[in-house]
């Protein structure tokens, strides 16, 4: 577990404490209810999606090792190790981070962000002042911008390409998981 995520043992301990405090009925695993009890997550517009990311494997509970594995996506990318090239499979690698983000969009797991899926995200994230039509045209336009093969949906490759210039390492990293 430690090796798969390469999080230091001190951090693991801290995370374990957190895990236990989240696990209110001490079953050794977290249920969606445990997540829902978090106030901040309930207020988060895409909290539900993030929660789902923890339960992506279809189970309705998440044990500590998968909990850490998910969180490991948010480790800052270790530059030195990346240079060796062998660490591409680390969850904190750029591609994995992007994949995680992509899956937040791709609710039906068909490997494509459809217009409807994008629209749902937009609906969640944009304020109520923006009308539905505007949302639709935003989604339309966003898809058009990224859609290279004109299938009216964004595949992972297209997604990756359109975020080429974005500094994912910074934007998808949380400092304390260093």
């Amino acid at each position, binding site marked *: 577990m430690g090796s798969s995520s390469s999080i230091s043992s001190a951090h693991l301990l801290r995370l374990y404490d957190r895990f236990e405090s989240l696990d209110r009925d001490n079953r050794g695993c977290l249920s969606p209810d445990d997540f829902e009890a978090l106030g901040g997550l309930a207020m988060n517009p895409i909290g539900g999606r*993030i929660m789902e990311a923890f339960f992506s494997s279809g189970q309705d509970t998440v044990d500590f090792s998968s909990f850490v594995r998910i969180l490991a996506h948010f480790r800052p990318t270790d530059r030195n190790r990346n240079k060796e090239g062998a660490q591409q499979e680390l969850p904190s690698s750029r591609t994995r981070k992007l994949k995680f983000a992509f899956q*937040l969009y791709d609710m039906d797991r068909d490997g494509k962000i459809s217009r409807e899926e994008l629209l749902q995200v937009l609906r969640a994230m944009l*304020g109520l002042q923006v009308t539905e039509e505007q949302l639709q045209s935003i989604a339309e336009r966003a898809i058009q911008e990224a859609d290279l093969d004109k299938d009216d949906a964004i595949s992972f490759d297209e997604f990756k390409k359109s975020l080429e*210039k*974005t500094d994912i390492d910074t934007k*998808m990293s949380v*400092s304390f998981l260093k």
Partner: protein
Amino acid sequence: MATLWRFTLFLCMLLMACGGLSLASKEAKTRSSQTETGTHNTTEEGGHGAGPITTLPIVTWKWDHISVQYLVALWVLVCWLCKLLIEANHNVTNYIPESALLICSGFILGGMIWGADKVQTFSLNPTVFFYFLLPQIILDSGYHMPNKLFFTNLGAILIHAVIGTCWNAASLGLSLWGCHMGGAMGDLDIGLLQYLLFGSLMAAVDPVAVLAVFDQVHVNEVLFIIVFGESLLNDGVTVVLFNVFDAFVSLGGGRINAAEIIKGIVSFFVVAFGGSLVGIAFGILISLLTRCTKNIQIIEPGFIFVMGYLSYLTAEMLSLSAILSTTFCGVLCQKYVRANMDESSVQTVKYAMKVFANGSETIIFVFLGISAIDKVIWVWNTGFILLTVFFVFVYRFIGVFFLQWILNRYRLVPVELMDMVIMSYGGLRGAVAYGLAVLLDEKKIKEKNLMICTTLIVVYFTVILQGITMKPLVMWLKVKRAAVAEVSLLEKITNKMFNHTLVAIEDISGQIGDNYFRSKWRHFEEKWMTPFLMKPSARKKQDDVFDVFHQLNLKDAMEYVTEGERRGSLEFVRNDSAILDFKKKLESEYTEAMPDIPPYMIHDDGAMFTMGRDHIPSVSLEMHEQTMKAMREPEAVDVHHLLDQHLYKSRKQYRHGFSRSDFKINRDEKEVQEIFQRTMRNRLESFKSAKMGVSPPKTLVKYSKKEQQEKVKTKRGNKHTLPPFTELIMSLVKSSEDEIRSFPKASFLVFFPFDFSVVLKILSGIENPAFMPDLYPTDLLQEIPPWLAEGEPDSSMVAPSLRAQANLPNSPMEMHRLGLLPASTRSTDTKQMNNDQLPPPPTPPPPPPPSGHM
């Protein structure tokens, strides 16, 4: 080159005039700078009714009357002309930063004055610098501060600004004192406290110098914001240190005890936080004011400047940090001001701010140069001067590396070693240090002139030498440069999602991090500040994603209009396949964008252009605007591929170019014109050389028109097969001198443009090349502008373009077509607008062929 010389000569003369005049008016003191302060006593003296009048003077020479104002205006002009001269040749500014060149031109100007007056009549005077030149620069930096970046790095900035500056001051002062004690400087009357005072005025990195140099070297934004933010915020520290040591020097060493030192530390916090609070208060005031300036739109931009200046003066009045005050005032109000005010006012503020800031920056540098040419201040002490330069340089490196090394342990993305080198190297000293040095009291500090002279040397060393070497160093160290701003919508949405995700992850893992605070602040802002400070109508546009969307649309619309105007008109909208696609794909966006462009705006090409181009999304760094623009070009091509596709397909501009030769055209139209003229000449020649043939020209034309109408009816079905028309062309080709005699030019013209595209198409389809040289020389085909050539193989546009042409009301009979057009009202609007805006209306119905209209 010749113009350059003439220009220099002109400058010289201007200066001589200045110098001469200044001599003439002794009582005016001729301090160009002492404007406002000196104004009153001088103007009154030279006022009217000074002596008994014997006769009515028609014209009187009243130099004394206006000398000060006149000199100020002249100096501003001269400084700006220097900048103009320097910027005239980019070969030089590519290597040497403008600030360095301005200082050098200051040397030259100073030399001239010295030569004329034998004494330095002009120099940078602290009052003018701190009250008239500096505020607008600071306000500009605050107002255009990339807020998110600034606050993300605030920790690092503060550490560098506070601890770094203290370190610089203390280490410089102590080391110099040590060297003095060691006997490296000979006989100088400077004590430890005075050294510390000197250290404190030398410590601060100067925002003006930093901006000027870093503006031209586009380093990555984190590096930039740390250096720049530090240079702005360390002012609080400098002012406090300077005041404290100044007081200590007056008190004398014996009377300084622990209580005084504690007072000094307390005063630091009071000055810094007090200044910031004053700034915040004024920022809130500005935001509130702009909420209700709807009815006085003309002067609403003025409020920003007046209030910004007041925030500076208020802080100064309370002996708080004025620079901090103005900075925070700008930082706070920018968001609300931009949302509250009218778009044009926002632009006005932006540009006026730039004019003031850039203008006074220029003046500052020129005067820094001029001030040097003064025998009085040059007191040479090799040890003192060289050691100061050396220590300033070395301690900056040590301080930055040490602080950043500690900071890096807490940073998510550590600042790289190369960046640290540039951060240290970017520690430029500038006019603030000089201003403070001039402020020193000569009674208390015997070696004031040595200090001024050393300060100037340090300023020249950092601004000129380090400024020049900065760019090569950045290249050599391969420091990460500024990236292109994100403008893609998906990127923006995803970024926003990242933010939410991080907050959620922090929630889940139970840690409190930056993201937590950021989201809390957002919450607070949305709940309390926005409703209070922002107009209700503006709140809607608050959303980032929506904003980017809006910007993109605006850009699209601008590009669309620009493209249209570049090619003469927006007529191509009526190419109906374009309309349909345009409507289908961009309908909603277009409706979004259009209401924001009042029709009258479109009249003014310039306004449109600037508005579209310069509307930089909030994410981009203001100071990198120039490169951003340049870098965004290729991207824009990509993003707007869709639009371009439709714009380029239309071929109607041929018609346009031909039918109105007197049309005041832009360059591209000229191109078309040229092609046309060449074609005409070729045709004429070929006609002359050809044999007599049979051709009834008038019927031919009619035929063609009829033909065309027929084709319109059957347009979509047979795009390629136009047999009657081909015959027509054949007959045309075979036609002879006779034709040229009887074939009226005008009718030819009318005919010609109409079917030009078709002709082209057919020609390219005809296998026998024999036709080509006759009708259209091959070079014509090569001359076709790229946008046309590109779409060449695609035959599908023939019919639509014809159709579109046919839709023009060429004759009253055809007028009804317009009504039947399946185009939306919007497209008609565009056309209408377009008709209004172009000097010669683009679509007057061409008169019937025989009448001729050329």
